[in-house]
C-alpha cells in the first residue's frame, strides 16, 4: 500500500516538474501592456483582494476603478497583482500574506468581510499598507498602516431616489396606478431589496427613500433582506414578493441583476413596476424597467491612494468623498424615466455639491413620530452608542453621514419605512 502511494506521488511530482520546466520560457500569464513607470512609481506594487471577479457588478466596478487609477498614476499593469474570488475567511489572510511575499507595498481588499483578516495581516506586516474598503475599524485598530475608505454612496442613492420619485409622480398623475399600489394611508408603495440589516444598507435605503420623498412625499417603503451580497435567485424572489405587495419601484442594495430582471419580466407581463439598480447600468438586463443605478466611481479613491503611495505620503485612515470629487454618480437614465428627470437630477446633484442640500436633513424625517436633534454614532466598534468615545452625529440640523468614520453609520429606522424580515 505504502509503496504504491509513494510511486504514485513520485510520478505525479515528475509530471508536474516536466510541465513547470516546459513553461519556463513563457511569461507568467498576460504580459503587462505599455505601462510607462517612472522611477518613483515602479517601487509601488499594488496587491488587490477581491470578493468576486469581473462577472459580479460590485467587484467589476472596483477592477475598473483600480485599472483607471493605475493608469492615471503611471503604475504599470504588471505592478498590480489581482486575487479574485477570495472568500471572507482566513483565505483572505493567506492571500494578503502571499501578496506581501510577492513584494506588494500596499494591499487593498474590497469587501467588508475581509476587514478583520486584513487587520490581522496589517498587524503582522507593519511595513506594508493595508486598506480595507468599506470597513470601519481602522480608526480604532491602533495600526498606522491600516486604513478604511468608502464613498458617500448615500448621495447618489438620494439622487437615484429623485429619479424614482419623478417616475412615481408621473405614474400617479397619469392615473396608471391601481388601488393595490397604495397602502392603507393612501401612500404609493415602494420596495427595496437589501442585503444585510446594518448601517451600510440602512443608510442607503433611507437616502433613496428621502430622495423619492423630495419629489413625491406620499410614499411608504418596504425593505426585504436577502442576507447575501450576491444572490441572483433570492434578489429576484424578493423583488417578486415586493411587486406582488403592490410596490411600483424596486430599489436595491445587493449586487446582482436578479431584481431588475424580475422587474423587467413583471413589466412585460403588464404590471406597473420599475427598477433602480446598484453598481452597474441595468439597462442590458432591464431595458424598459431600469430607470438608473446608483454607482461608485472607485477610481477617485484609488487614484488618491496610489498617488499618496507614489509620493510616500500617508494615506488617510478614513476616507469618504462623494459628488464633490466625482466619487459617486448615477448611470445613464433609462428610456422609461419621466419627462424633466434630467433637469431635476442636475438640480439635486448641484445642491449636494454646493453643500446647500444635506441628504439626512433632520427636518425631513421622523423617528417614532418625532424629529431628532441628537443621535450618537458608535466609534469604538462595539456597536452600541453609549460609550464615551461615541460621537454626536447630528449638528447644524443634519446627520453627518460618513464624516466621523468612512463607513456609513446612519442606522436609524425612520418613519415610513418597514423592514419585512
Amino acid at each position: 500500500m505504502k509503496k504504491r502511494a509513494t510511486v504514485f506521488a513520485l510520478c505525479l511530482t515528475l509530471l508536474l516538474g516536466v510541465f513547470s520546466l516546459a513553461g519556463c520560457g513563457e511569461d507568467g500569464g498576460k504580459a503587462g501592456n505599455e505601462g510607462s513607470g517612472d522611477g518613483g512609481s515602479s517601487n509601488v506594487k499594488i496587491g488587490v483582494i477581491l470578493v468576486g471577479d469581473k462577472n459580479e457588478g460590485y467587484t467589476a466596478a472596483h477592477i475598473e476603478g483600480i485599472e483607471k487609477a493605475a493608469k492615471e498614476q503611471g503604475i504599470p499593469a504588471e505592478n498590480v497583482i489581482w486575487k479574485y474570488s477570495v472568500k471572507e475567511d482566513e483565505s483572505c489572510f493567506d492571500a494578503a500574506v502571499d501578496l506581501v511575499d510577492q513584494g506588494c507595498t500596499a494591499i487593498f481588499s474590497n469587501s467588508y468581510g475581509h476587514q478583520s483578516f486584513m487587520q490581522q495581516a496589517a498587524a503582522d506586516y507593519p511595513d506594508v499598507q493595508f486598506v480595507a474598503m468599506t470597513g470601519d475599524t481602522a480608526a480604532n485598530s491602533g495600526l498606522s498602516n491600516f486604513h478604511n475608505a468608502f464613498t458617500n454612496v448615500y448621495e447618489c442613492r438620494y439622487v437615484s431616489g429623485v429619479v424614482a420619485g419623478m417616475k412615481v409622480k408621473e405614474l400617479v398623475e397619469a392615473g396608471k396606478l391601481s388601488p393595490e399600489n397604495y397602502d392603507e394611508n393612501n401612500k404609493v408603495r415602494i420596495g427595496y431589496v437589501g442585503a444585510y440589516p446594518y448601517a451600510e444598507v440602512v443608510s442607503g435605503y433611507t437616502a433613496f427613500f428621502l430622495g423619492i420623498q423630495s419629489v413625491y412625499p406620499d410614499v411608504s417603503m418596504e425593505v426585504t433582506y436577502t442576507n447575501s451580497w450576491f444572490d441572483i435567485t433570492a434578489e429576484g424572489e424578493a423583488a417578486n414578493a415586493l411587486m406582488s405587495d403592490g410596490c411600483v419601484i424596486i430599489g436595491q442594495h445587493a449586487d446582482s441583476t436578479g431584481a431588475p430582471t424580475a422587474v423587467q419580466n413583471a413589466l412585460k407581463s403588464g404590471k406597473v413596476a420599475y427598477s433602480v439598480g446598484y453598481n452597474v447600468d441595468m439597462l442590458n438586463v432591464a431595458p424598459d424597467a431600469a430607470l438608473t443605478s446608483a454607482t461608485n466611481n472607485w477610481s477617485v479613491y484609488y487614484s488618491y491612494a496610489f498617488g499618496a503611495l507614489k509620493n510616500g505620503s500617508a494615506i488617510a485612515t478614513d476616507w469618504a468623498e462623494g459628488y464633490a470629487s466625482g466619487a459617486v454618480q448615477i448611470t445613464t437614465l433609462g428610456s422609461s424615466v419621466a419627462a424633466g428627470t434630467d433637469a431635476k437630477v442636475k438640480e439635486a446633484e448641484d445642491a449636494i455639491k454646493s453643500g446647500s442640500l444635506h441628504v439626512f436633513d433632520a427636518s425631513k424625517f421622523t423617528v417614532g413620530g418625532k424629529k431628532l436633534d441628537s443621535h450618537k454614532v458608535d466609534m469604538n466598534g462595539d456597536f452600541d452608542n453609549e460609550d464615551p468615545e461615541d460621537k454626536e452625529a447630528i449638528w447644524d440640523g443634519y446627520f453627518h453621514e460618513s464624516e466621523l468614520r468612512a463607513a456609513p453609520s446612519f442606522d436609524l429606522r425612520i418613519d415610513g419605512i418597514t423592514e419585512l424580515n
Partner: protein
Amino acid sequence: MQEYKNSREPLIRLTKRDSMPLGSRIVVRLVSVVLAMLVCAVLIYAITGINPLVVYRTMFEGAFGSKSRIWSTVKEMMLLSCIAIGLAPAFKMRFWNIGAEGQVLVGGIVTAGCMIYLNKLPSALLLPVMVLCSILAGALWGLLPALFKAKWNTNETLATLMMNYVAIQLTSFFVAKWENPYGSNTVGIINQSDQKGWFPQVMGSRYFFCVVLVLLLSVMMHIYLKYTKHGFEISVVGASENTARYAGINVSWVMIRTMLLSGAICGLSGFMAVAGASHTISVSTAGGRGFTAIIVAWMAKFDAATMLLISLLLAFLQNGAGEIASKCGLNDYASQMIIGILLFFLLGCEFFINYRPVFRHGKKKEVR
C-alpha cells in the same frame, strides 16, 4: 456460455477483474491524469487561447511557489485529511457518514464559543478545554444517527446528511449571535488582540501544530484500523453484518463506538479549522471539505498514507487554481472546471481498475 447462444453478443461487455497488478494500477492512474491534463489543455486553448503549459506551471507556482504558499497548501491538505481520517472507520464499516460537514461545524462552533466565553483562562488551559469540547460536540453529532441506526435501523445516509443542515443552521444562528460588528453577519477574528486560544506560531507558521496533530492522528488511525481488535471488528461489520453477528460481534455497539470516534475526529478538525487556521466561525469554516473528504477517503481506500497524498493533490489543485485566476486572467469557474475534469478522470479510472471491457470481435479472452 450456453445461454448466450441465441442472443447477439453485445459490442462491449464488462467483466470484473480479480485484482490488477500494482504496476498496471499505477499506469492506469497516470494515464488518467495525463488524459485529464490533455482534455483540460485542449479546453483551455480552445476557449481562451492561453498556452496550457503556462497555465499548469502557474498552478504549480500557486501551490508551491513560496514558503507561505506551501504552508497554505499544507494547511488545506491537513484540514482535508483530518476529516478523511475521521470518515475512514465509518466508511470501512459501510456506515455512510455523509455528515462530516456538520460534525466539523459543531466542533468549530464550540471551539469559537470557548474562545469567546472562556478567554479569561490561560492559553495552556484554554486549548485543552477547546479540544475536549470540540471532540465531545463532534462525537455527539456522530452519535445521534448511529443510535437511530443501531436501535431502529434507520437510514444513516439521510440521517447524517440532515444533521449537516441542522449544523449549518446552528452555525448561522451563532454567527448572528456573536456577529461583530452587529448586523454584518460575520463574527470577525476572535480574540484578535490577545490571540487567546490560537495555535502558537512554530517555524514561522501558525499551521505547524495542525501538521503535527494530523500526522499523529493518521498514524494512530492506521494502527487502529490495521492492528487492533476494534479495527478488525469494523472490517467484519463492513464486509457483512450477519457474519459479524455470527462471529459474536455486538454490531450495534461497534456501530455506535465507531461513529463516536468518527464524529470526534471530525469535531477535532473543526477545532483545528477555527483555532489553528481561521480564528473565526462561519458556514465556510467547513467549506465543503466534509464532502470533499468523502472523495479522499474512498479514493484512498481508507489507507492513511494515501489519504494524505490525495488531500495534497486536492489542496494543490485548489490553491493552484486560485493562482490561475490571478495570473492568467481565467476566472474562478475555469479553475473549477480543471479540478472537475481531473477528479472525473481519477475517479473514472477506478472503474477500469476494477472492470475489464471485452469487445465482441476482439481477441478471444477467457471470460470468468
